[in-house]
């Protein structure tokens, strides 16, 4: 951090604020970025492998969601520098999206209901005839 200021081209500038100000910026060793970059590649390859090898059922859902959350977490935490930010900002940004989980739940209930209704009213004729059958017997 300190040496970044040393060879700053603005050194001749009389105003001290800009030099001091860029300490505020996120400066980290390149190594961590390359590690995360590699990790993202591995995780993407893994989630592609889930599809390629036709993993099915809950294992598929579980793996896809785990890989998705890991990738998203790594990008937000390291690439977007969230681990180095102050908590006031981290919570302001990361807590509100949790609301989306509520919407997911609402959407899922609604979808189940629609699915049932469609099955009842727009289903194939054979199914619709079924409840009526005992009467004619």
């Amino acid at each position: 951090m300190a040496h970044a200021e040393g060879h700053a081209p603005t050194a001749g500038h009389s105003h001290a604020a800009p030099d001091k100000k860029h300490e505020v910026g996120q400066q980290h060793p390149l190594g961590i970025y390359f590690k995360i970059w590699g990790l993202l590649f591995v995780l993407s390859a893994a989630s592609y492998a889930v599809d390629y090898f036709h993993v099915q059922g809950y294992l598929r859902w579980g793996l896809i969601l785990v890989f998705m959350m890991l990738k998203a977490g790594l990008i937000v935490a390291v690439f977007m520098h969230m681990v180095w930010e102050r908590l006031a900002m981290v919570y302001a940004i990361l807590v509100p999206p949790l609301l989306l989980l509520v919407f997911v739940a609402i959407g899922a209930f609604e979808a189940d209901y629609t699915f049932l209704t469609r099955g009842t009213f727009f289903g194939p004729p054979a199914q619709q005839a079924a409840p009526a059958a005992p009467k004619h017997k």
Partner: protein
Amino acid sequence: MTQTALASTAHAAELKEGLPGIVADWSSDQRAFKNVPWGKAMMWIFLLSDTFIFGSFLISYMTVRMSTQAPWPNPSEVFALVIAGQSIPLILIAIMTFVLISSSGTMVLAVNYGYRKDRKMTVIFLILTAILGATFVGMQAFEWSKLILEEGVRPWGNPMGAAQFGAAFFMITGFHGTHVSIGVIFLIIVAIKVGRGDLDHQRPGFMTGRRGTYEIVETMGLYWHFVDLVWVFIFAVFYLW
């Protein structure tokens, strides 16, 4: 113009950490987000709103897919490509994913070199990011034309199954592709600004009186990583399910 510089650094030493830090930050004078340039804070808030837009799209897609009686077209087969006589499932999408992740990697390097005030490397990596982004959009255009022209997918129906497939697909990937395209344009703008030394000499931007600083590279980076982030979710819930 000048007041922005002092506000952020003045109390840097005496900031509290943890829960007391959150309370202190939020109840403090002037600004809640300490140690963060205002442009970056605003970009985060914009991205938060964008999260809800994409969240709404993906939730609508989930609702529509769960509620349809017709079988959903299998993305693994729909997006397969025949390469060297073999049909490889989802290969185009996989390549697009790797291209976008690579562009995120080059973006993070651009931000890093920006803060070191290494003008040349910053421009190189910004341009590299823009090229990868444009590649992504190009591949998406290829994917769209293949789907529309060869497979006959339309927003109102398709030969493979549930009619809602096309609407969800075009809406979600179209909106994401628009974000990538806008990102590429802004990457080029930022690259030009860095390249001709606007940030080194703190020249004000086109529409603002504020002095240019290398923080705009990081703000640009936030947007770009967000585009990558959204793709992670689209890749998982649209293509892999």
